[in-house]
């Protein structure tokens, strides 16, 4: 049984305008699954439906064999799914430490909170040195780690990441994906959306291409990456010389 299974999922923000038009996908325990596809394909909407921010109008969402479709977000959180949304979502005026504590707001046992804090701090040791800093003062990449740290405070079986690499410098992005892979090696199952499709798939086990609110392809991440057709249609940067025209790059006077 897959950890997460969506069957024929239909959802919309405005009645009558379906963003998801019958999505089927699954995430097995221990996997990293990456969703890619054009802008407006419904990738973020899938994530929102899974974490309860959007009520599906049809279809089912099963998590560990239990139907969670339409449940309130906080209920889904306690079922074991945390969602790190697109863009910045730290509480900018709270300290790093306070942000992490917010992640455990459904946990009542103080000792448990303390243990988890220690775990997060030992995983990301620099967080401890910045614990008293306002989260809004950190760089974009650092804030993303705070968000992931905050999500880890629930020790969720499944973490949802919506474009984790957005706005990150290349070096920071590589470090972030390394962190994601390491969390996964330690048992965390991950469902993520990445517009940086090549990097996202390179870190994933399987991938789905979503288009117009429906999954169009599913496969091993490596197979998707190696397919010339995928490159042409969805991933960009095809190695096929004819598929994109070389830009002229005219020369200009050097700036001294």
């Amino acid at each position: 049984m897959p950890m997460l299974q969506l069957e024929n999922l239909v959802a919309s923000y405005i009645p009558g305008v379906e963003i998801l038009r019958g999505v089927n996908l699954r995430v097995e325990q221990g996997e990293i699954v990456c969703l890619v596809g054009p802008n407006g394909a419904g990738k973020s909407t899938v994530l929102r439906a899974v974490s309860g921010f959007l009520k599906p109008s049809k279809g089912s969402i099963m998590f560990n064999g239990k139907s969670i479709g339409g449940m309130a977000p906080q209920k889904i959180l306690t079922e074991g799914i945390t969602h790190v949304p697109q863009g910045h979502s730290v509480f900018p005026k709270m300290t790093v430490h306070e942000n992490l504590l917010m992640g455990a707001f459904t946990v009542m046992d103080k000792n448990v909170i303390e243990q988890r804090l220690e775990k997060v701090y030992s995983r990301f040791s620099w967080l401890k040195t910045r614990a008293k800093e306002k989260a809004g003062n950190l760089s974009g990449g650092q804030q993303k780690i705070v968000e992931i740290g905050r999500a880890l405070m629930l020790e969720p079986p499944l973490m949802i990441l919506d474009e984790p690499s957005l706005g990150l410098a290349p070096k920071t992005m590589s470090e972030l994906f390394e962190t994601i892979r390491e969390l996964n090696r330690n048992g965390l199952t991950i469902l993520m959306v990445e517009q940086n499709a090549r990097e996202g798939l390179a870190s994933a086990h399987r991938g789905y291409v979503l288009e117009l609110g429906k999954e169009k392809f599913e496969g091993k991440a490596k197979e998707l990456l190696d397919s010339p057709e995928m490159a042409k249609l969805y991933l960009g940067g095809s190695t096929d010389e004819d598929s994109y025209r070389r830009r002229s790059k005219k020369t200009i006077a050097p700036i001294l």
Partner: protein
Amino acid sequence: MPMLSASNVSKSFGGIKAVDSCSIAVERGSITGLIGPNGSGKTTLFNIITGFYTLDEGTVLLEEKPIHGLKPNRIYHRGIGRTFQITRLFWKMTVLENMIVPVKQLGLRTLMSQGVKNYEEEKAMELLEMVGLEKFRNEEARKLSFGQQKLVELAAVLMSDPAMILLDEPAGGVNPVMIEKMMDLVDDLNQKGTTFLLVEHNMRLVMELCQHIVVLDHGQKIAEGGPADIQNNPLVLEAYLGSTQNANATT
């Protein structure tokens, strides 16, 4: 003489020098890239050039005339258009209305009183088609996905034919195939004479489009030069790219 030159510009927030005596020149007709780690001052520099921030020290000259101290709308009318990293569309206006609002010599008032002029609508629709969003013309902007909003912003800035366009992470959140189209579009406009200054983390876009690249770290310029120089500069590898492998990973 560069078209735009910022000289010894500094800007502090509280105790932190976000931009520290930084100089950057943009040649007419060039596509100039501005790269650097998160928090290195790229967007702050953009905000200074476009008048969203006032600088603490230094000068910004456009066509040899000072523009620092001018309000953003004045700078816009001098011919510098820009987009934002996190989109700033009018959420409750339609996509088409968002396209028309920034048109030169037009403001909200004209929009409200006279409606949309034919040639403006034609141009707006042409641009929306180019970014693949023509069917959303009558949708409220807030109903678009983040990536779609980025594309509307890019299309909207092109409505007024600015002589220089500043793009703040145009590829962020945009599908790779659309990034290719965006690169073609920027290249095409550049061929026709538009000058670009862009901040971007997508190295494929930067290295393929830019003739000249300036690298910031901690608010200071640490390197500048052509793509090949920058890709092999040890300081840049250390501060930004991580390793040559990473630099190639996104190409």
